[in-house]
């Protein structure tokens, strides 16, 4: 710490985050400030140096080069003696209309490491010439590099400005760039945005930097602490050159993100220390806001002379003597005139997908500074870009030994929520799995095989025997249709997800199939109808006990957005729980109006449900609806409804036995092979889901139309409707999914054929009228087969006739009437049928039923 007695100009210490350059040659500006490292290497010691990045270690700080526009980080830049300069940074704003780089106050960047100093060279013990020379000599002439790095400020600045001015990314599809002209330099538009909006933060995608200038990118990753301030400087120069009249709260800060260095918390190692990294994870805890003192304000109790002392590595050097009146120990700290910055500790846990099986997730501490504080909440999935730090445990003055362990944390520069997009409904770019070229090649090879569809479906749940059509259906569900957006024409999104219901006898491995699917897909949820409530499925509002803040907790359906929600024991679900599924299964959204929170969440989930028949065994004499007792409104939302029944035939038994026995004696290696299959299958699905978006071609559309017309025709011959537009939509989805299986961008006739076949199979199983043996879609759409409806009418007519034949009796006994009807009719008439008939007649205003009597009208 330089002594407080120095002149205002000379007082300015360098801040550690400012690139240190050793100026050699004529460029050094006249206003040389005194270098700060005369303060000893005190107690808070060096950053650990990893063996690999040997040269990154010590950095000498000297900000002398940046006397103008970027004084940025230095609060001390502004004249200290000015009476306007008291208090927190905001109060330091000059009263005069400010514009231009000079007038805009710089804001500290604690994220770049203000408190802890980078290691400094002890100039006495180390031959200074050697180090200095190594860094600067190779760069001949006027080239200056920041000490310990190979960064030349001038070049770096120039390069970055060129990047800002020229970088164009026509293929960009990031949500941040929505509304920008992609053929114009991207970042210039963003600067313009800043000048309009006034939010002085420029987010820079490191991927862009890399594609523009790989060397600059490398420097950014390796020496973020030095390069980012240089970027700041460059961007401010450019900005104020362009928009000289803009008024900003503080100077623009560059926030790089998406550094490809590290994606996974587990792979962080000592070599990443002090480098810029991006990791993904989930926030598990955030601390309270911590005010961190940046500058202490002291006032003399005797003469009221005031002075400021900057915090140096967590310590304040209390002035012992008042400069003004020379009284010793008269200065007192005035808290509310000291400058503080915000800080928050955030604990991040690695996301479950990144973890090897059988281990526990790792956690990392992240510090957020200033406006990044309170940007994230526990439970958020985020990508953090920041600088990885390691700090040795504090040396205890009374102890000569030190714990040999470092504390590590990340100073956050940029947060990006990965689940935020779910709310906005844009495509999940963060989910994109990166496939190696090799992998893509194997996948494409697999796709080229003519029997890929069969192969994949048999790789699905190999332990479950046969049920090939069901597996095929589930396979198509895993791939899903193409997402279509008709919001312009007012119909909103079309559902692309395929919903499947499995019904059948207990013990036909439905649950196992569900478990398998749940394990296969990255975003699967498994719930049991018995145990889940409506809120467990959708979302509920919770009050945080500490902050009293209302928090929206999402349930299984929202969590499985873009995935599959497996619901076992669908029939056991309560009525109210099931009702929330109506919206999800067609509109793919969830509306919540609770405790003052009204919102619509996306729940683009496929539902794979399993239901048991009401009577413990499936009754083949009853329709699907009667067997599982689910409302037809819900059933019609399933694209495919399969019955899993015991086929009871010898050949099947034999194959089943063979399958099971082989299951029990296969050796380890064969099992290994299968595991590999599952991984391939996973990748195959992930690849197809992200990269393949098939569209219907002409023939396929024709085929679909024909198929639909055919389906309608079948029914019309018997006076009933056998297909609805919903079925057509199902067909389209299935055909698209099948095209995805083939990695084809076009939906062709074969896809339609398979979709038709599968749909027919499913209908044959579930929508066959047990009385007539015909497929009757109205069983699923209205809950009653056409024959049953006809029958109902007949009973009603018979009843009417009977009543009429009785002559003028205004009132009849209910039981009497029932018995009469039963006696009269040849077919057995149940009480239900009788009541239905009565209701039908009541609807005709022919009679009314009051209690036990029936009155004619």
């Amino acid at each position, binding site marked *: 710490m330089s002594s407080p007695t120095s002149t205002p100009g000379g007082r300015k210490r360098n801040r550690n985050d400012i690139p240190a350059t050793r100026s050699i040659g004529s460029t050094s500006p006249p206003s040389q400030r005194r270098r700060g490292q005369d303060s000893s*290497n005190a107690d808070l010691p*060096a950053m*650990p140096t990893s*063996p690999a990045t*040997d040269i990154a270690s010590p950095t000498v700080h000297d900000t002398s080069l940046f006397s103008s526009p970027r004084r940025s980080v230095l609060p001390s830049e502004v004249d200290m003696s000015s009476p306007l300069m008291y208090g927190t940074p905001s109060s330091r704003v000059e009263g005069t209309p400010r514009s231009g780089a000079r007038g805009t106050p710089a804001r500290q960047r604690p994220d770049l490491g203000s408190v802890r100093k980078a290691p400094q060279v002890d100039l006495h013990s180390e031959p200074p010439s050697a180090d200095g020379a190594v860094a600067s000599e190779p760069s001949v002439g006027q080239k200056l590099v920041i000490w310990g790095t190979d960064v030349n400020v001038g070049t770096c600045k120039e390069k970055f400005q060129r990047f800002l001015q020229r970088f164009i990314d026509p293929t960009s599809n990031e949500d941040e760039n929505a509304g920008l002209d992609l053929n114009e330099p991207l970042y210039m538009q963003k600067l313009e945005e800043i000048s309009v909006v006034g939010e002085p933060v420029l987010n820079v995608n490191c991927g862009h930097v890399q594609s523009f200038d790989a060397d600059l990118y490398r420097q950014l990753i390796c020496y973020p602490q030095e390069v980012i301030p240089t970027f700041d400087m460059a961007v401010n120069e450019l900005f104020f050159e362009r928009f000289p009249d803009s008024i900003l709260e503080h100077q623009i800060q560059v926030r790089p993100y998406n550094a490809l260095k590290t994606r996974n918390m587990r792979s962080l190692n*000592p070599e990443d220390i002090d480098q810029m990294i991006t990791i993904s994870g989930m926030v598990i*805890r955030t601390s309270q806001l911590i005010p961190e003192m940046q500058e202490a304000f002291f006032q003399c109790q005797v003469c009221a002379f005031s002075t400021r002392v900057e915090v140096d590595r967590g*310590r304040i050097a209390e002035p012992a003597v008042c400069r003004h009146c020379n009284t010793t120990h008269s200065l007192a700290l005035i808290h509310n005139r000291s400058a503080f910055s915000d800080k928050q*500790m955030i604990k991040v*846990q690695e996301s*479950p997908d990144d973890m*090897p*099986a*059988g*281990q*526990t*997730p*790792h956690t990392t*501490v992240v510090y957020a500074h200033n406006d990044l504080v309170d940007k994230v909440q526990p439970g958020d999935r985020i990508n953090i870009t920041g600088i990885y730090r*390691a700090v040795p*445990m*504090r040396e*205890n*003055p*009374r*102890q*000569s*030994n*030190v*714990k*040999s*362990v*470092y504390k590590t944390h990340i100073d956050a520069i940029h947060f990006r929520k990965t689940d935020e997009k779910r709310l906005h409904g844009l495509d999940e770019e963060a989910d994109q799995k990166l496939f190696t070229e090799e992998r893509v090649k194997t996948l494409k090879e697999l796709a080229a095989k003519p029997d890929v569809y069969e192969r994949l479906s048999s790789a699905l*749940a*190999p*332990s479950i025997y046969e049920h090939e059509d069901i597996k095929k259906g589930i396979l198509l569900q895993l791939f899903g249709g193409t997402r279509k957006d008709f919001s312009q024409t007012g119909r909103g999104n079309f559902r692309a997800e395929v919903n499947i219901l499995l019904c059948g006898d207990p*013990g036909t491995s439905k649950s*196992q199939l569900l*478990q*398998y699917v749940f394990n296969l897909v990255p975003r699967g949820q498994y719930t049991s109808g018995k*145990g889940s409530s409506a809120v467990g499925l959708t979302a509920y509002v919770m009050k945080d006990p500490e902050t009293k803040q209302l928090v929206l907790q999402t349930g299984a359906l929202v969590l499985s957005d873009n995935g599959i929600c497996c619901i076992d024991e669908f029939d056991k679900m309560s009525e109210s729980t099931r009702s929330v599924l109506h919206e999800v299964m067609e509109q793919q959204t969830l509306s919540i109006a609770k405790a003052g929170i009204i919102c619509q969440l996306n729940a683009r989930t496929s539902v794979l449900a399993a239901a048991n028949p009401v009577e413990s065994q499936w009754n083949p004499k009853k329709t699907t609806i009667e067997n599982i007792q689910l409302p037809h409104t819900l059933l019609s939302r399933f694209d495919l409804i399969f019955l899993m029944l*015991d086929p*009871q035939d*010898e050949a099947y*038994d*034999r194959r*089943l*036995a*063979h399958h*099971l*026995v*082989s*299951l*029990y*004696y*296969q*050796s*380890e290696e064969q*099992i290994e092979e*299968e595991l590999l299959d599952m991984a391939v299958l996973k990748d195959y699905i992930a690849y197809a889901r992200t990269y393949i978006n098939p569209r219907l071609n002409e023939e396929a559309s024709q085929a679909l139309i024909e198929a639909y017309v055919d389906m309608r025709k079948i029914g019309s011959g018997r006076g009933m409707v056998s297909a609805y537009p919903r079925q057509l939509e199902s067909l389209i989805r299935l055909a698209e999914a099948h095209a995805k299986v083939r990695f084809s961008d076009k939906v062709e006739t074969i896809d339609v054929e398979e979709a038709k076949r599968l749909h027919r199979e499913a209908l044959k199983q579930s929508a066959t009228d047990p009385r007539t043996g015909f497929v009757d879609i109205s069983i699923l759409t209205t809950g009653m087969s056409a024959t049953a409806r006809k029958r109902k009418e007949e009973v009603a007519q018979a009843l009417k006739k009977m009543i009429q034949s009785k002559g003028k009796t205004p009132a009849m006994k209910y039981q009497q009437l029932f018995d009469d009807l039963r006696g009269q009719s040849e077919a057995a008439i149940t009480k239900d049928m009788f009541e239905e008939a009565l209701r039908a007649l009541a609807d005709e205003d022919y009679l009314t039923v009051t209690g036990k009597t029936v009155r004619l009208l």
Partner: protein
Amino acid sequence: MPSSNDWINNPLGVVEEMFVQSNSNPEWEAKVLEYFKGKLKEKQAYSWIPSLNDVPLHYLKPNSLVKFRCLVQDMFDPEFYMGVYETIDPSTKAKVLRFGKYKDVTECGVDLNSRNTVTAERQTFYCVPIPGETLWAKETYARSSQARVVPSTSYIPSRQKRSYEEDDEMDTQPQKQREPHTELHANGDSKRQETEAPSGQTTSPSNASSPLDLNFPLPGERGPACLVKVYEDLDSFKLNDMLEVYGILSVNPLLSVLCEEKDPSASLLDPTESMETPEEQRAHDPPASLVPRLHMLHARPLQHNNPLLPSDRAEDQHAFVSSFMVEMASVRAEFLAYLTHILLGDGLAAEYLLLHLISSVYARRDVLPLGKFTLNLSGCPPNSSFTESLHQVIQELVPCTYRLSMTLHNMNSLRLVPRKDYVANRLVSGALQLARNTSLVLDETRLEQGQLDASGVQNITALGNLISWQKVDYDFNYHQMEFPCNINVFVTSEGRSLLPSDCQVPLQPQVTPPNLEEYLSTVHKAQLTSQINKFRVYLSVAQTLDYSISDEVTKAVEDDFVDMRKDDPQSVSAEDLHRMLVVARLLSLSLGQTSLSREGWMRAKHIDMLRRTRSQPQTTVNGNEP
């Protein structure tokens, strides 16, 4: 061997020597590992090293080589430490390179700005003694140790005497403590009841002023927990692995000082330290006197925890198994007779219990675990000590077991599933965090009518998942994580169990002794220790055998299945075939046959048929009941 004392008593000296010799060539690390591995390979070397499991901590020499038989309960975040650093002598200004590996604390006068500093990475595992380890296993391990750690010879017997009492109580009493109403005969443990009942799962070390939760999976466990620092092959270790860790014991009192005596003003200003919650500090930096640190030099994963089986080398084990195979059939007959006595003369139930005890998940096909054989013994007399005595018998036979009394209170209040505590940043253990092949006895006869609350339902679901899928979903608050397990679940119930099971056998007692307890204890006492030891070996050997089915037998089984279905499709389902195949497998293995024979299959079918005819009338009776 004179030199042995050196590497056992002063391993750091050995490391130091190698480090100095290497001249800062990074290869020294590999050399150290090589050296200790070689030393440990020597005959009997294992037994010279004192074990933390049977020697109390204060009898062990700090910085000496010790071993610890443990379960990886939690894995902490990796930490960076100074692998190599330089110290400066304040008086002479001489610089010396030193190593930080296998140490917690650095030497004096670290030059923190030195360029020779090498940062390295290590990870800490929180290890606890294997949960539910039975008394006989502990004793046998202790007896086989030849370590001479204590100067006074009089010490060892006295210590063992004490451990008898303690462990005896530990193994049988925890259930009693939680249900003092039903079991009043608690023999003199009222004192412990008082001390432990309020603290619940917390095992309080008697001398600590504030109790430290050592986070044992099972209530009432004792023994040292240990922070094992792992340097190599971090990825090869998994949660719940059973390990025998060989490492350097570090109980440096400085560790406790460093974390407790903090300058309050410093912590105010240095945010990195004030950031850790006190809970986290306690969980991650407990006093070394209570939770010693162990710097791992070598770890041996344990496939089984049976001290009677040679575990050192694969060849040894192989020879042992093949020599034992000859005896298998005869031991089995004896064992079956013994179990039949225990199960009141019910031979079929004894047969099934035997099969259950040797079952083990040997593979997983996608989500389906193969080889599990959960047994539900129904018809157990309620409100008697039968189930408890049965568990005592099992305790004498298997190395690890735990009896969970499914009282309503237990179900509602116990934490079965491990849960991540984000405040303390650790995995809070639950009773289902068990080592492989632990025998879990669920006593449903203790369940009474009443209301299950939310956590009770969760516990029941967790048990159901464990039985059906052999996995436990650990609660990570924001998500769940699935950990596969391999636990033999044995359910004793009065009627049919409410939990799923692979196989249900109603108990049909042939004898009705007037005093059940006395009867069982006489049966139990009649067995010689040598015989019991044979049974113990038998169970472990049968569990590890390989098994295959020939094509010919496959065909026969298929035919058989088709025939059975032809007669009555309702009678046999795919599930039944699944079960019969498991039964056939276990039956063959129990006889020491490593492949299925036709007779084996017929036998399996036969006993399954017997079992089914036995349960048939019962189910119809149940069905007719209102």
